[in-house]
């Protein structure tokens, strides 16, 4: 009985989108099912709380971090994330992609595609890029520089 409860806890914790608060909600819902077995429930409780504290961190990394702030940005990580998002875009050939490749001249995209790319960057980094500045960003290098300027990353 306790083993089944623990298995259920592990399964809910292993799901990548689960937050720590939701994991805490899973504990009281699992508690009533363990209530009939008095001697086992205390051991189950201590094991459950220990697992709640430890297991999210190695498996999920950033999503279940216990602090409230994001990891600090560096030029390297910004560049990696920008290139990653660009590689996911289906109109870009990943082999041609360099940090200096111009969207319109080298990669053959048009202004509508550039708008979509900038919106994907807004979603990735979580802040708004206004229209006037967005239409000037034509290479991945310029995007990295713009984000570094806005986020005060040391150059």
């Amino acid at each position: 009985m306790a083993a089944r409860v623990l298995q259920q806890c592990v399964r809910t914790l292993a799901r990548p989108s689960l937050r720590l608060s939701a994991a805490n909600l899973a504990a009281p819902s699992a508690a009533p099912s363990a209530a009939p077995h008095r001697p086992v429930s205390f051991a189950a409780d201590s094991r459950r709380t220990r697992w709640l504290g430890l297991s999210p961190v190695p498996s999920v990394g950033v999503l279940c971090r216990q602090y409230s702030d994001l990891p600090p940005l560096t030029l390297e990580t910004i560049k990696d994330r920008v290139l990653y998002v660009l590689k996911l875009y289906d109109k870009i050939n990943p082999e041609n992609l360099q940090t200096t490749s111009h969207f319109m001249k080298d990669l053959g995209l048009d202004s509508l595609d550039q708008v979509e790319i900038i919106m994907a960057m807004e979603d990735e980094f979580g802040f708004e890029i206004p229209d006037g500045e967005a239409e000037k960003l034509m290479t991945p290098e310029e995007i990295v520089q713009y984000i570094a300027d806005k986020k005060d990353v040391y150059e």
Partner: protein
Amino acid sequence: MAASVRAQVISLYRALLAESKSFPSYNYRTYAVRRVRDAFRANRKVKDPQAVERLMVEGQQTLALIQRQVSIGKMYETQKNVVED
């Protein structure tokens, strides 16, 4: 004059895409994003100023429609779909 029309089209495209992404329902959201992209791409080559004007008006009405439907959708949210992450 053409430059400002182009800028208006670009900002309308951004507004439509941003608004479409805020649909709570997976089906409406994916359809709206896809439809907006396809409509703008299909009308890329239009040069006649009156046709462009008519399309812009239609685009703004669509933007208002999407805004209304997004707020209605947020009032009556359901569970997330299985295919969503």
